[in-house]
């Protein structure tokens, strides 16, 4: 069992001023997930009459993309290729002090404590993250167009982005290029995505800029911190798509 000191960002609401508060927590088992440790803390806080720490979480198996904690200066904490919910306390030591902050970026305003508003990501998807096909039931047979396995696999790898925002929180410029390029790449690699390719990349990039995300300066930190291992190659692919769209457009 471990004893920890937690320094957690507390902020009442979007307009309030926030600060780091210190709590100590006993009896943390190494088998707990990071969020289960937070559950225990919250039970303790409520017993003491303190408002529990608000944080986003849902599936707790690393795929919904809800959880979003900046732990000791890293998005989703010290382990690689995991979300906060899959991070386990065995990665920490008895007596550790852990800093826990929200994913910070101007387009991710804080709602409360560790909860941020990531609807800017949704709005980028509304601008072009789709293929315009109606659900009439009359689409052609699924095997009518063979797709080279290598392309299908790369499209899948890009499509596994969970939209958590770790890339943005990690980037010194708060750039959303890894997130946007994952969706652009998925469709760019598939024949179905070709028809709207020009409009898609132009519209999504335009929306990304309007939301206030910064530019990419090829640091590559996003790729390192991405819990799903989304590759920087996608950014290169989006840049090519964007360039040729501009030439065409």
């Amino acid at each position: 069992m471990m004893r920890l000191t937690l320094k957690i960002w507390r902020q009442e609401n979007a307009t309030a001023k926030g600060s780091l508060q210190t709590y100590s927590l006993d009896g943390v088992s190494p088998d707990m997930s990071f969020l289960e440790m937070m559950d225990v803390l919250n039970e303790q806080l409520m017993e003491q009459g303190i408002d529990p720490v608000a944080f986003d979480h849902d599936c707790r198996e690393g795929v919904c993309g809800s959880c979003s904690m900046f732990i000791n200066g890293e998005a989703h904490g010290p382990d690689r290729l995991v979300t906060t919910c899959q991070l386990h306390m065995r990665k920490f030591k008895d007596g550790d002090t852990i800093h826990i902050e929200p994913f910070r970026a101007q387009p991710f305003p804080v709602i409360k404590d560790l909860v941020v508003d990531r609807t800017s990501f949704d709005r980028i998807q509304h601008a072009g993250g789709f293929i315009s096909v109606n659900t009439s039931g009359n689409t052609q047979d699924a095997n009518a167009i063979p797709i080279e396995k290598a392309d299908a696999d790369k499209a899948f790898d890009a499509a596994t982005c969970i939209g958590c925002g770790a890339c943005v929180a990690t980037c010194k410029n708060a750039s959303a290029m890894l997130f946007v390029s994952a969706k652009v790449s998925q469709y760019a690699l598939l024949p179905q995505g070709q028809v709207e390719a020009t409009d898609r990349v132009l519209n999504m990039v335009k929306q990304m800029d309007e939301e206030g995300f910064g530019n990419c300066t090829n640091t590559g930190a996003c790729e390192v911190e991405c819990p799903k291992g989304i590759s920087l190659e996608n950014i290169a692919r989006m840049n090519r798509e964007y360039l040729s769209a501009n030439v065409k457009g």
Partner: protein
Amino acid sequence: MTKLNAHIPEGPLADKWTTHKNNIRLVSPANKRQIDVIVVGTGLAGGSAAATLAELGYNVKAFCFQDSPRRAHSIAAQGGINAAKNYQGDGDSIHRLFYDTVKGGDYRSREANVHRLAEVSTNIIDQCVAQGVPFARDYGGLLDNRSFGGVLVSRTFYAKGQTGQQLLLGAYSAMNRQIGRGKIKMYSRHEMLDLVKVDGKARGIITRNLITGEIERHAAHAVVIASGGYGNLFYLSTNAMGSNVTAAWKIHKQGAYFANPCFTQIHPTCIPVSGDHQSKLTLMSESLRNDGRIWVPKKKEDAKAIRDGRLKPTDLAEEDRDYYLERRYPAFGNLVPRDVASRAAKERCDEGFGVNKTGEAVFLDFAAAIDRYGKEKAHVKGLDENDSELVETLGKDVIKAKYGNLFQMYEKIVDQNPYETPMMIYPAVHYTMGGVWVDYNLMTTIPGCFAIGEANFSDHGANRLGASALMQGLADGYFVLPYTIGDYLADDIRTGKISTDSPEFDAAEQSVRSQIDAFITNKGTKTVDYFHRKLGKIIWNKCGMSRNKKQLEEAIAEVKALREEFYRDVFVPGTANSFNEPLAKALRVADFLELGELFAKDALERSESCGGHFREESQTPEGEALRDDDNFTFVSAWEHKGEPSKAKLHKEALTYENIELKTRSYK
């Protein structure tokens, strides 16, 4: 006892859906623009329904409690989606998918609904591919398939271990297109807290904005509930933390019958509970049973030695292991349906053969598969098949390519390497076949209120086959509801906008506000989770994988007592007008505390065993589930009468004209 009418169309089974579509009433494009539809939930069913209704021209308002529709729990489905494409040429057909589903459900589902599901399954794959869903493909560029439990063909389409994610993101993209066009108005971080009926018809909902706490009124001509299942009744399940029954329960209390509440799927391969702090359970995909062999030690003393850490499972000789599924079910072996596999694991653990600290785990072992694949690879490469080290390395590579992400997930959680030592698994609550009763049009017993996906009861009977939940969610949302809802809405083309300024809306809003105020001012001594955990324990211990009369009666009394204690002593911190997760949770747990009682009552009433519902009083000498077709070939549909104990049972008789009722055998 009222007779329930499911409005199943006349005619031969294979023609029913086509005939129905031909005869159903339509709403013209111009009139669709005048009609509003509310969709609650944005998983596979709700997301696909919202997108399709908007494409058709209706004005859609969609609601989810998550911060984005992309996070609905359909995202976590791993293994795959079934469709009767017969791309493998292994004898699959619509009829076979229909037959397997009815048999898998232990003959407690509706023939006509299941046949329609099998018919539209092929459209789903076409649709998803057109949307850019990146399914797994073979080297020829065509779609690949795998096998799932309870069937003898390969009809499961998949995208590695993230099929649900890819399908949900497909539905999300279809929604995004309509949100961009202004045809869907999306309300995320909103929870539905009541249904509003006007003149007996569903005409709107009351919601709470989870950021500001604001109570809102939303009106529409029809309300579609797509809020998923209620597995979190058990506290520990593979459901997401936020998954809840509230939307479905609120409509039940307003007059929608709730069907077969006790039909729950307990999935055999989940990571076992590690301690009291456990907040949820993680599934290991059924696809692992394609290659993993399930076993426990033959001797109790060996099991004890493994539990105490004195013996390593890899050191136990082959002849001292009991591959109990292969022993009991030689025909299907490790790929028996989920209910059968779960019960068999429980039986061994109850007998004292469990292999982890708590005694509630069995092994899922890949050593034989690693050896088999390794030898194959060595042979293909012209290397020495007798070099055991080489064979092991090659075999592990094959397993990694197939199940790498699942093995990584297991290692992160359990801190053991499943390539070196067998996985430990145990059954966990995963899916609920029961749900809101609907007719063939997917309409509940409240006119204008529909239920789709896991929220309804319609297609899986008493046990769902693997890879069929995704199929049903998308079938309902893309291809069934968008047709059938028109039949109802055709009467509403002259109704005009529904106003939220009415006594019905006033009353509904008032009741929501007073419920919230009661929680905030209660100032009890115990947290919401205390009650939820306790409820989960009662249901798991007394209404879990096996059930008997005495325990069910105890459960009914205990849940009732717990509910009373909850209202007396629950502590909800904070205010009503703010982001307040404990408050949101209290509102959900309040509904679970009512459902739990009805759940046990339903299980008590059905004194036969069928599918996932195992009554100890009704079993064969070999311990298999024993159905009682003479007395229980019906759907139990419960009508709310003030409180769960007074719920009134209605029976929808199930008739089988195309399938002969047989004892389900996987031996």
